[in-house]
């Protein structure tokens, strides 16, 4: 008990979830500040989940104007609203999210997150990025890691392509209470460290989707594309890249099936059921990290509708864990 009690209003609203994670966790949630950048359907799901859970504040970043495409998987935007010129995607989403829970402060921050200086990040307990290139992920992840205020900033990156999805988690050095008498310490690698872990050192059963996502990501970087700016026409060059990467990493090319690459290249739209699943898992992970309850996943979560598995892969150098 740190003196502050939940109000009667909070107790009534959060009754069912307090029964899951307890009053202390609820109190920590209500003091937390979350930043998201990139308002796609998956992030809309995530935002809904944590606003309902009762975080203290949520800051949205996405200056783009609403297009027809944005309506497909994002239930926070009403089709009749897209006519109203001048307002950004983040602003539209903000209006809807505020309605979900009046006790959460939802606001919009303009600008390009990657160019913000480090102090800006100090306000937040967790930063979530989506629709974000390889280079930008690295930059933002690094900025989160450099801050050394009292608590660490949790970093998450989420991608949804076709009916596949990936979540990356970096909690730096994370201690949490387990059943055992001793607290458990997890050491997370940064995104850059994780993706440079040599493939041949990974377990044979590592999910193929992990490798396929790295190939697509590298391809977009090499071609200077924005995330998701791909089509089936890119396949020949992607296969060349697959060959190069697999040779360099001593991985059998069959570990990255052509069919999977085809789906990832062509399916640039989000698949709403997968948005719900990824947004749900991501919401749960952020709630765990903030509340300090439950063992967080380390450090990739991958889901593919085709086999239906939601798999956790620990991609880190054995020496660092």
């Amino acid at each position, binding site marked *: 008990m740190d003196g502050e009690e939940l109000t009667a209003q909070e107790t009534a609203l959060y009754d069912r979830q307090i029964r899951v994670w307890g009053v202390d966790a609820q109190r920590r949630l209500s003091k937390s500040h979350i930043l998201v950048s990139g308002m796609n359907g998956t992030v809309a799901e995530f935002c809904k989940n944590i606003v309902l859970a009762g975080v203290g504040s949520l800051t949205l970043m996405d200056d783009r104007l609403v297009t027809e495409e944005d309506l497909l998987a994002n239930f926070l935007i009403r089709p009749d609203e897209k006519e109203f010129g001048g307002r950004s995607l983040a602003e539209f989403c903000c209006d809807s999210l505020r309605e979900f829970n009046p006790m959460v402060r939802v606001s919009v921050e303009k600008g390009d997150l990657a160019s913000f200086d480090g102090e800006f990040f100090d306000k937040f307990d967790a930063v979530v990025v989506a629709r974000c290139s390889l280079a930008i992920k690295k930059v933002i992840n690094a900025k989160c890691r450099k801050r050394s205020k009292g608590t660490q900033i949790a970093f998450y990156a989420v991608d949804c392509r076709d009916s596949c999805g990936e979540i990356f988690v970096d909690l730096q050095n994370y201690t949490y209470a387990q059943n055992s008498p001793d607290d458990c310490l997890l050491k997370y690698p940064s995104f850059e460290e994780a993706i440079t872990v040599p493939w041949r050192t990974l377990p044979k059963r590592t999910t193929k989707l992990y490798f396929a996502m790295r190939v697509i990501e590298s391809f977009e970087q090499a071609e200077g594309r924005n995330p998701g700016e791909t089509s089936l026409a890119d396949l020949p060059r992607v296969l060349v890249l697959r060959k190069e990467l697999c040779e360099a990493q001593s991985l059998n090319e069959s570990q990255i099936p052509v069919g999977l690459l085809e789906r990832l290249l062509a399916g640039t739209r989000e698949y709403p*059921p*997968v948005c719900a699943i990824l947004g749900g898992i991501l919401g749960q992970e952020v709630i765990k990290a903030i509340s300090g309850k439950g063992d967080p996943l380390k450090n990739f979560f991958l889901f593919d509708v085709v086999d239906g*598995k939601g798999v956790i892969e620990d991609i880190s150098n054995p020496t660092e864990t």
Partner: protein
Amino acid sequence: MDSQKQAIKGAKVLMVGAGGIGCELLKTLALSGFEDIHIIDMDTIEVSNLNRQFLFRQWHVGQSKAKVAREAVLKFRPHINITPYHANVKDPEFNIDFFKQFNVVLNGLDNLDARRHVNRICLAANVPLVESGTTGFLGQVTVHVKSKTECYECQPKPTPKTYPVCTITSTPSKFVHCIVWAKDLLFAKLFGDKNQENDLNVRSGDAASSSEHTEDVFERRLNEDPEQYGQRIYDHVFGYNIDAALANEETWRNRNRPKPIYIKDVMPDKPQQQNGNLDDNSVNGNSTVSAMPSLGLKNPQNIWSLLENTRIFLESLKLFLVKREKEIGNLTFDKDDQLAVEFVTAAANIRAASFGIPMQSLFEAKGIAGNIVHAVATTNAITAGLIVIEAIKILQSDATNYRMTYIVEHPLRKMLLMPVEPFEPNKSCYVCSETPLSLEINTNRSKLRDFVEKIVKNKLGMHSPSIMHGTSLIYEVGDDLEEDFANNYALNLEKFLSELPSPVTSGTVLTVEDFQQELSCSIYIKHREEFDEEKEPDGMLLTGWTPAPSNDDTRPISNGESSSNASKQLPGTQEDSDEISAVAADKEIALTGSKRKQSEISDVDGEVAISACTSGIKGSNQKPEEVDDNGDDDVVMLDENPCKKKRLQ
């Protein structure tokens, strides 16, 4: 993908339930391109829904869930058709013909009874069903397609937990026993229907004498002051009754003796002057009447002292008498009725104190009394995503890829979402195959009423049953019965089986039917003289409805079948303990990596519990076995599945 889009666009789907899973499901269906969605839900919106049922707002409280959900989704998908029904799915309008118009039925229900009902109608209408459930971070989605996969009832579901009457009335040992006493006996006696049978004053040993003596104790005397009345009730139930019970030495030979509690022990000063002032309670509605503020108690998480509980007891009882007098005689316990929760919490705590059982906070007591299930938005969202994925497979008749998926809290074989191939139908399932059941029963001492209540309604889940012995109808339910038939059935109910006009004895075969569910089954009757009070509390034993031949008698079926004692049982209180064990089992999985107790989540969101059912997995060292991880179509297989299984088609 285009064929998938066409299949989705042309599909007509029925959602049952617009609650925690339902809100998420309706949203995800609409985003996924479904254009013709029907949704049934009888509930109205409550404040405690708002933390996860995100289509609802504060100002919707009290309105129909189905209707408000429709309006909310139309805001982001204005051009699709959503047809809401603010009604009970068990209503006769939702008959087999109604169900036949849909390509698939999607359940987001919160209780076993409705789930069984929908399962039966889907089987009869031959419409595929996707079933789901969540509790806390655990969830489950299953696919039920007639004759291809098991039906919802192929694995018996534990029926609601009941407690032996004497545990509740005389020898409580857990807090939940005190809650059941406070809610089903004391609260019902004071504020409920006076004509209901009530075991409040029944004590083992001297039931007859005491009930005569105390028959009018609970009646408020003419012009009796509410405070005096409250104190008199208090002294009677916590003091006098305990003293009287203590007189029976036999009961306490192997038990801790309870301590009688009288007002004067707890409040040596005059209690009425210490109690809060009624006028402090500015009242504008039942849900706002509360005893806590006037006594300075705010935090529902705190555990009150015996004195505080005593004050709450007296104050809440007084408030019922003064502020809610008109409702007395018609009240049933409602977890959203603040004053009722306060009264039950205080009464349960005082009784707990008397029996040396640790007291609990109002928050905890409310959870137990209201069978409140833990629920969070994230699990519901994930579940809804999985339901839509399976629904789309069904629309494309992609039977080889149907999966049931478990959402687990702690990774199992690296997985948080674990797909499993559906099981084949259970050949001994009385619901989806025509397997006869057999019933061991004392035909000379069991009345037809016992059979109807305990077996036909409770175990077989029928709502409008008819019972045939050969060609003669011995019982039937219906609105349009002729009077002499109805009278005859009423007479039959009170007869022992062997004394019915066409006597039911060993060897008799009864046919039990429910026309609405289009379900019929035969029951072989076997007379048996004695039953074990502990293990066979119903005084009868239904068999034949087992997952598969098994020599393991620790199977959970027996838990579900018989969990309480004595010829009389208290209905109702369904404990959360099943749920807890499910969560515990899940933890166990994570810790040992090899232990797996599958948690079947059968009820959700507001009503009740989960059952730790091992649908196919039992024992302590089985683990799901993965089939060749290199194939692209690999799935997790569970070994030792009694319904030996597999690959569909």
